[in-house]
């Protein structure tokens, strides 16, 4: 029996495993890097071991340090989570060699699937359909039909992957993929594969015990991807026929048996029409495992642990029920190349969550292995989150914040529930892909089940659907006004913005995602007068909430201010959330500090005077502190020196020249 389990991972998946451990009475050990010292996963575990450093290579990828952590903390088992060392056979071996229980398949099985090229050969021999792998430069490469995909053999997560449509670009793409693969995985081996365009990415969940039983727990559709990373996953797939499903399950089970697989694993396929092709096998728990859990009513982590303890799976898996969809919420900016975001997540709140890290409605009697939940209450909203309000999102790790999963009897209803919950979530402080995910879940093609790996290329959803930003900005302006009145040291009890001789409205300007928005409003005894909002009346306003009546329909706007937003010259940002949409607004100062357009590196005359000597010529390289010229003023000589090393890019003066105070004498372009 496992008594104390170390999770060799961080954030959401670490918390996910801890939750199951708590149910089973297994003690938990977290490892955390310096950057994660304050993160929820480290705080939640019974014991936590610090990994010195912040870079993955120094921390979560340091197999030796993690095994040492397991030993020093008295753990007797190690769960690798996903990513990091989860598919590292050497790590699995090190764990076993240290006398610890390894939650996962044997190192041999990991190795067999570690190389994509080898794995495909192995699968082909076992009768699993595969796409041809072609080694670049080999004779077969010349016969390839374009487009082709360049892939890293040791790859994952889309790194080292390139689509090549023009044969002329192949060599360059191969070279780039090699470089990327080498730096990411320490193995630069790449191969070519025919590109199946607009195919579906379908994977089959496998669970195998040590007694030879292999379950296939349905397929997951993971076609909606950005930069080859999944963002929306669901089960069952809306585009797999019963016939194809049979082929997939059969192929997946065969793959698992071919390598004597034990534990939870996933066999990935590309599916287009009747074509089914093995992609790879992931010898670990997948990020998207919750959708399978919800539909089968099982706890995959629990089953992983029980299998590791030698338990026997029942002969048949439970019957799937209903539909589940998962979205991955990332701190990234879809409108700017999916650029990862970092900073403080001021607020993270998803309303209506039924369960965290578990299948909704399954709390209750102790179910046996594989025993499903009972009753319709098993449907609902599940949140698996690695962060909490106030978490710092750093630059060192994957910017995934959380996974939100909805499950229910029918796909359209589940998509609707998930989209609304996501739209209502309050996510403050960072730009996220939330709006994009909502757009996907509400998109016609998605609702029609027409999903494929090119979905986000075909439908540009990176620009958020127009939300009523001016109305949200009006709510923000009124909340700011209420805050200022509440905090006023004098006359705070008088009506907001009261005038006995009205001449103009109050004005507040915001920087919004769509540009500058200015709100002009006046609060009178007859209510709100806001320019451009004839239909809007004010019902109530407080610093945190504004209630507006828009043409007879009353809506509530929650407003949160961070970092002193709304006070002159302090910066900060406001977040407005409402059923009509959410927006982040940066209040612009009414009286901005003037920006003087003096080129950087300019040397200004400190006082009026006469140029006595010029020591350099235009274009000359200078060192920091080197005299540039001498100014004479009031019979004193003032030496002007270079503030930093660089090149004299501008020289405005010659000896004898009279200069005014503040005149630009020269510009030193700093060398980098």
């Amino acid at each position, binding site marked *: 029996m496992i008594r104390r389990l170390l999770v060799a991972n961080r954030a959401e998946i670490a918390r996910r495993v801890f939750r199951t451990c708590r149910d089973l009475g297994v003690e938990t050990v977290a490892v955390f890097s310096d950057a994660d010292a304050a993160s929820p996963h480290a705080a939640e575990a019974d014991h936590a071991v610090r990994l010195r450093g912040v870079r993955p290579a120094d921390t979560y990828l340091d197999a030796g340090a993690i095994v040492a952590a397991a030993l020093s903390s008295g753990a007797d088992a190690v769960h690798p989570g996903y990513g990091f060392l989860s598919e590292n056979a050497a790590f699995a071996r090190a764990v076993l060699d240290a006398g610890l229980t390894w939650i996962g398949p044997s190192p041999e099985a990991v190795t067999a699937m570690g190389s994509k090229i080898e794995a495909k050969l192995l699968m082909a021999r076992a009768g699993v359909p595969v796409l041809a792998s072609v080694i670049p430069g080999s004779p077969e490469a010349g016969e390839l039909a374009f487009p082709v995909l360049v892939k890293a053999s040791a790859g994952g997560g889309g790194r080292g992957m390139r689509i090549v449509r023009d044969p002329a670009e192949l060599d360059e793409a191969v070279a780039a993929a090699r470089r990327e693969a080498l730096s990411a995985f320490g193995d630069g081996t790449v191969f070519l594969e025919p590109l199946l365009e607009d195919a579906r990415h379908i994977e089959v969940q496998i669970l195998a015990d040590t007694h030879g039983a292999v379950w296939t727990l349905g397929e997951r559709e993971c076609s909606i991807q950005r930069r080859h990373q999944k963002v929306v996953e669901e089960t069952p797939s809306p585009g797999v026929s019963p016939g194809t499903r049979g082929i997939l399950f059969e192929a997946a089970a065969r793959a698992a048996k071919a390598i004597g697989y034990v534990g939870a694993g996933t066999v990935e396929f590309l599916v287009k029409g009747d074509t089914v092709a093995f992609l790879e096998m992931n010898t670990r728990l997948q990020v998207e495992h919750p959708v399978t859990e919800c539909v089968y009513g099982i706890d995959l982590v629990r089953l992983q642990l029980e299998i590791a303890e030698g338990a026997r799976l029942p002969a048949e898996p439970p019957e799937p029920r209903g539909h589940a969809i998962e979205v991955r919420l990332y701190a990234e900016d879809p409108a700017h190349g999916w650029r990862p975001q970092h900073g403080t997540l001021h607020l993270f709140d998803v309303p209506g969550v039924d369960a965290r890290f578990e299948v909704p409605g399954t709390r209750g009697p102790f179910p046996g292995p594989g025993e499903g939940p009972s009753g319709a209450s098993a449907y609902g909203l599940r949140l698996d989150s690695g962060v909490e309000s106030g978490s710092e999102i750093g630059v060192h790790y994957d910017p995934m914040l959380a996974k939100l999963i909805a499950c229910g009897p029918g796909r359209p209803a589940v998509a609707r529930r998930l989209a609304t919950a996501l739209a209502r979530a309050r996510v403050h402080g960072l730009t996220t892909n939330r709006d994009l995910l909502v757009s996907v879940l509400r998109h016609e093609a998605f609702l029609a089940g027409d999903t494929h790996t090119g979905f986000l290329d075909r439908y540009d959803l990176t620009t958020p659907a127009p939300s009523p930003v001016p109305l949200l900005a009006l709510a923000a302006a009124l909340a700011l006004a209420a805050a200022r*009145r509440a905090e006023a040291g004098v*006359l705070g009890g008088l009506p*907001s*913005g009261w005038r*006995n*001789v009205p001449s103009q409205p109050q004005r507040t300007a915001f920087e919004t995602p769509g540009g500058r928005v200015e709100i002009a409003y006046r609060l009178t*005894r007859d209510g709100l007068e806001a320019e451009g909002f004839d239909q809007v009346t004010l019902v109530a306003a407080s610093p945190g909430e504004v209630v507006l009546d828009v043409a007879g329909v009353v809506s509530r706007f929650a407003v949160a201010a961070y970092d002193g937003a709304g006070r002159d010259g302090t910066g900060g940002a406001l977040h407005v959330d409402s059923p009509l949409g959410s927006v982040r607004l940066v209040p612009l100062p009414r*009286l901005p*500090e003037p920006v003087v357009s003096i080129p950087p590196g300019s040397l200004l005359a400190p006082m009026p005077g006469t140029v006595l000597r010029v020591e350099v010529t235009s274009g000359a390289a200078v060192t920091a502190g080197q005299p540039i010229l001498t100014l004479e003023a009031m019979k004193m000589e003032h030496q002007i020196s270079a503030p930093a090393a660089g090149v004299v890019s501008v020289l405005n003066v010659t000896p004898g020249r009279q200069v005014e105070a503040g005149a630009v004498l020269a510009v030193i372009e700093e060398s980098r």
Partner: protein
Amino acid sequence: MIDSRLDTASAGFQARRAAMLAKLRDLASEQAKAVAGGGPKYVERHHRRGKLLARERVELLVDPDSPFLELSPLAAWGTDFPVGASVVTGIGVVEGVECVIVASDPTVRGGSSNPWTLRKTLRASDIALENRLPLINLVESGGADLPTQKEIFIPGGRIFRDLTRLSAAGIPTIALVFGNSTAGGAYVPGMSDHVVMVRERAKVFLGGPPLVKMATGEESDDESLGGAEMHARLSGLADYLALDEHDALRIGRRVVRRLNRRKAGGLRPSPAGAVPYGGPPGVRAPLYDEEELLGIVPEDLKIPFDPREVIARVVDGSEFDEFKPLYGASLVTGWAALHGHPIGVLANARGVLFGEEAQKAAQFIQLANQTRTPLVFLQNTTGYMVGKDYEQGGIIKHGAMMINAVSNSTVPHLTVVMGASYGAGNYGMCGRAYDPRFLFSWPSAKSAVMGPAQLAGVLSIVGRASAQARGQVYDEEADAAMRQMVEAQIESESLPFFLSGRLYDDGVIDPRDTRTVLGLCLSAIGNAPDAPAPAGFGVFRM
């Protein structure tokens, strides 16, 4: 707590309300003239030059969403000069500090000062001094209106004297110079503690290029004689060089922030208001709707009204502890709180002041001085009672007691003229000559030595007696015409716009704003420490 008996469904209420609303529409249109400044042509030209209007400058200077009380907005009404007198004055909050702001309106004849501009500006300066409020001048003025210089030049020297006296009293003075501030005007920045000038806009010199040429033959230009850069770098008259108008206002706010002002007096929590309600802790709104203040004063001021209906809609929680309610019932006196500030209230109930009322007032004012409680006078008086019995009963002595008490009281006084303010009643109820800290009129107010009909009647009787004495036949036709003419003239000269135009009040206000205006004034008053209680005798019981 006051139990209101106002029947808001009655025809009388509706008629009074309709009459007041008509007067408020007139008020709004007169105020709009002041806001319009020099009119669309000059406003447009001013904007085209990249400049802000006087009120735009004020709005950017004060804290967002804070209240601003504009003073004397109808100055110069009924004169040859535009309404508003080419200057905006008021009390506003800058960086949490209540300040007096004076902004010349350059769209009206270049912002030049006429006699009314001067009186309005001096009044603002008095308010700053009395209440110890920092004074911020937003300067852009072409100097004196030359045709009326005789009315301005000699008394106008007070402007500069007042600035330095404010400073000597420890009250900061700040000048933000946006444009012309020449000749005598140059002493506004000259006498101010803190001076900001806008680059390429401010022009501050004693004599411009033509005058210099005439005086000494020297060739010069505006920038070298009085530009902002020159004053910031050479003369040292400018402490801060602003890049543009917004920058000047930003610097002005920073200057106020660094004044480190602490209010000397200010809010003393009133025991009457213990229940929290919005705003400052312990302040409750009146129980009755201030909207109903529109329907209280009858259009015909001969009809009396109960001032408790007004008090019930102005003071915190409508709570009013009446003093001597059974004695001298024609004057209501009592204690209350307004926006948390404790006050004593004197309000006329049936117009006439008799001996009892005068004595009651004198005693009440003495009591307020004992407790250092500010007094609010709500005027609706036709004066002290006349007639044999009253003269023989000593009405002059009694009225003198009240006027004595009002004159020598050292607590702050605030006066609101709700209706009639005739005769010595105006004095006893702290009219303008008795220097209340602030005085406001409702549109229903009327002030004169006596009612127009009475005054015309008196003239007629005197004329008739004089004719009889000379043995002449009195011309009845001429008498009727004289009476009509005098009545019309007195009526028009007793109306609030006319009196406000002559600076006999600090503004005509919407009755519904009474609580807000008085609350703002009481808060402003709190910037000055309590005056010492007068030495002398104990309170005289009367």
